[in-house]
C-alpha cells in the first residue's frame, strides 16, 4: 500500500472559478457606510417634515456643511489611521499647536497679504506633518501602542501651544485668510472652507480605494504579518499614514484660524473623539482592514444633522450627545457581528442576518 489512487466520486463542489461577478451596485448595498447613509437620509426627512421652513432650507444646509468641513478634513486622516488598526488621539491638539505656530509666524512676519498668509498655511501643514511623523515613528519603530503615543502627543502639543502663547489666544489672523478661507464663498454661496474639505475628501477617497498606497493601508490593518512577509514596508507605511493624519490636522489648523480668527486653544478638546466617532459610525472597523472615506463623511453628518435638527425643532440639544453615543455603540456592535460572521464564513449581509435570526 504505497500509492493511493484517489478515486474521484461524483463532484460535490463544482469548479466555478470567479464566474460570479457582483455588480458594484449590489456590493454598495452591503456596505455599512451605505446603510448608515440611509439612516442619514431618514433623519433629514424627519427633520424636514417637522420643520420644513427652517430645517429644509438651503441656508441651513449650508450651515451644517460649513460646520462639518474641518472635521471632514480630520476624518480623512483618521480613516486611514483606523484602517491600519491604529488610532490618533492627538489631532485636536495638533490642530491647535499648528494653528498657534502658524499664527505666531504670521504675526512675526506682519503684513496682511497673500505672501504672509501662504507662509502661514505652509507652516501649519508642515508643523502638523512633523507631529504625525513623530507619532508614526514611535508607533512603528519604538512599538509603543498608538493609543499611548497619541495620548502623549495630545498632551504635549496642547501644553506646548499654551507655553508658546502664555495661555492667551492669538487673535490677529491676516484678513485675507478670514475673508477667503474663513467665510468666503464661491459660485454664489458655496463656502470656500467646504470646497477645501471636499477636495481633501475626494483625493483621500481616490487614493484609499484606487492606489497601491491605499491597498497597503488595508493590508497593514488586515494582517501586519502577511503584509510584512510579502515585502510591504510596514513601518514606513505606518509613518506615512500618521504623517497624513498630522498634516491634515495642520491644514485643519489654518482652516480653524481662518474661520474663527483665533487660535481657540481650548476649543478642540472633544475634536478627536468626535472624529473617531464619525469614522466608526461610518463603518470603519476599529480592528483594522476595513473602512471607507464615504462612510466617514456620512458618519460626520449624523451628529451634525442631529445637533442642528434638535436645535431647530426645539428639543434640548443635549439629546444630541445621547443619540450620537447610542449610534456609536450600535455601529461598533454591527461591526462586531459582521466580523464574527466573517470569521465563521457566514453571510456578512447584516439585514439578511438579522432577519434570519428572527426566523430561527
Amino acid at each position, binding site marked *: 500500500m504505497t500509492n493511493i489512487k484517489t478515486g474521484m466520486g461524483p463532484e460535490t463542489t463544482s469548479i466555478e472559478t*470567479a464566474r460570479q461577478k457582483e455588480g458594484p451596485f449590489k456590493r454598495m448595498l452591503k456596505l455599512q457606510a451605505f446603510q448608515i447613509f440611509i439612516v442619514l437620509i431618514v433623519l433629514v426627512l424627519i427633520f424636514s417634515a417637522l420643520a420644513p421652513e427652517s430645517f429644509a432650507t438651503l441656508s441651513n444646509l449650508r450651515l451644517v456643511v460649513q460646520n462639518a468641513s474641518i472635521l471632514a478634513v480630520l476624518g480623512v486622516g483618521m480613516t486611514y489611521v483606523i484602517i491600519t488598526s491604529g488610532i490618533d488621539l492627538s489631532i485636536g491638539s495638533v490642530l491647535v499647536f499648528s494653528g498657534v505656530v502658524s499664527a505666531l509666524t504670521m504675526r512675526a512676519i506682519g503684513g496682511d497679504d497673500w505672501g504672509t498668509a501662504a507662509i502661514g498655511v505652509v507652516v501649519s501643514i508642515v508643523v502638523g506633518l512633523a507631529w504625525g511623523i513623530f507619532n508614526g515613528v514611535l508607533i512603528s519603530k519604538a512599538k509603543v501602542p498608538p493609543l499611548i503615543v497619541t495620548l502623549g502627543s495630545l498632551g504635549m502639543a496642547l501644553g506646548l501651544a499654551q507655553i508658546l502663547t502664555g495661555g492667551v489666544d492669538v487673535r490677529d489672523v491676516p484678513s485675507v485668510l478670514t475673508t477667503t478661507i474663513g467665510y468666503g464663498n464661491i459660485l454664489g454661496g458655496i463656502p470656500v472652507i467646504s470646497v477645501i474639505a471636499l477636495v481633501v475628501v475626494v483625493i483621500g477617497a481616490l487614493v484609499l480605494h484606487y492606489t497601491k498606497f491605499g491597498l497597503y493601508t488595508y493590508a497593514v490593518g488586515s494582517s501586519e504579518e502577511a*503584509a510584512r512577509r510579502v515585502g510591504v514596508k510596514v513601518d514606513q507605511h505606518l509613518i506615512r499614514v500618521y504623517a497624513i493624519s498630522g498634516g491634515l490636522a495642520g491644514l485643519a489648523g489654518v482652516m480653524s484660524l481662518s474661520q474663527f480668527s483665533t487660535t481657540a486653544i481650548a476649543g478642540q478638546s472633544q475634536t478627536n473623539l468626535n472624529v473617531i466617532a464619525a469614522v466608526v459610525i461610518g463603518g470603519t472597523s476599529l480592528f483594522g482592514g476595513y473602512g471607507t472615506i464615504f462612510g466617514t463623511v456620512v458618519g460626520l453628518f449624523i451628529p451634525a444633522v442631529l445637533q442642528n435638527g434638535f436645535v431647530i425643532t426645539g428639543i434640548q440639544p443635549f439629546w444630541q450627545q445621547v443619540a450620537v453615543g447610542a449610534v456609536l455603540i450600535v455601529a461598533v456592535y454591527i461591526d462586531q457581528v459582521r466580523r464574527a460572521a466573517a470569521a465563521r464564513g457566514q453571510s456578512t449581509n447584516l439585514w439578511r442576518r438579522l432577519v434570519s435570526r428572527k426566523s430561527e
Partner: protein
Amino acid sequence: MTTPVLEARGLSRAFGHVLALDDADFEVYPGEVTALIGDNGAGKSTLVKALSGNLAVDSGEIKFAGEPIQLTSPTQASALGIETVYQDLALAPHLDPVQNMYLGRELMRGGLGGAVGLMNVNEMRSQSRVAFDELGATVRSLTTPVGSMSGGQRQAVAIARAVHWANKVVFLDEPTAALGVRQTKNVLETIRRVRDKGIAVVFISHSMPHVMEVSDRVQVLRLGHRAAVLDAKHTNMEELVGLMTGASTKGAA
C-alpha cells in the same frame, strides 16, 4: 550529481530551552519534489522559516545555487525565486484573492496613472483567474475577502500565489491539511507540474500516502536534526514512520 539549488548545513536555532533546529542539514534539487517529514514539533516549519528569510538562525550556513548567502528577509528570498506557503497561510483576510496574489508586487498602470499609484486591476484579475484555473481551485469569487472563504479556498489562494511567483524553490508547509479529496488531488498535480518546470518543490505533510505519491526524495527530521534522506522509490511507509518516531535509524545525517 547536480548542485542543490538551496542547501542548509548545520542549522541550529533555539527558542528558549527548546532546540527547534539542532545541527540540521537540508538540500533540494531543481526539478525534484523533496518531502520533508517529521513528528509534530520536529522543526519542519522552523526550517522552512529559516530557509525563506523569516527567521534568523543561531548557527549554520545557507547556500543558494552553491553560493553561501545570508537570508535576512522574505523579500530577499522572493527576489531569488523562493516562495513559501506558510502553515498559517499568511494572507490578509480583508483583501480579496487577487489583492492577496499581487500584494507587494502589484502591476501598475502605464503612464500618468501608474505614476500616481494606480494599479492595473484588470490585468491582475485576469492573470489571477488563469492561475486559479490552472490549480483547479474552487475560488468562487475574486472580489470577496479571503477571510470569509473556507479554509480550503484560502489554502488554494496561498498555493496559487506561491506557485505563480516562484521560479526556483517552493516551500509548501502542509498545503493539503484543509483540502477536500478533489482539491488535494489538484494540489498534488500542481506539485508535479511545478516540478516539471524545473522548480524545486519542498512538500511538508503528515500524510504518508501523499508523500509516497508525489515525492522523489524524502528527508526525515527528528527533534530538529535530519534523521535520514531516502529515495522515495526505495522506501515504504513503515520505514518512514520508524524513522520519524526514532524506532529505527538509517542513512546519512
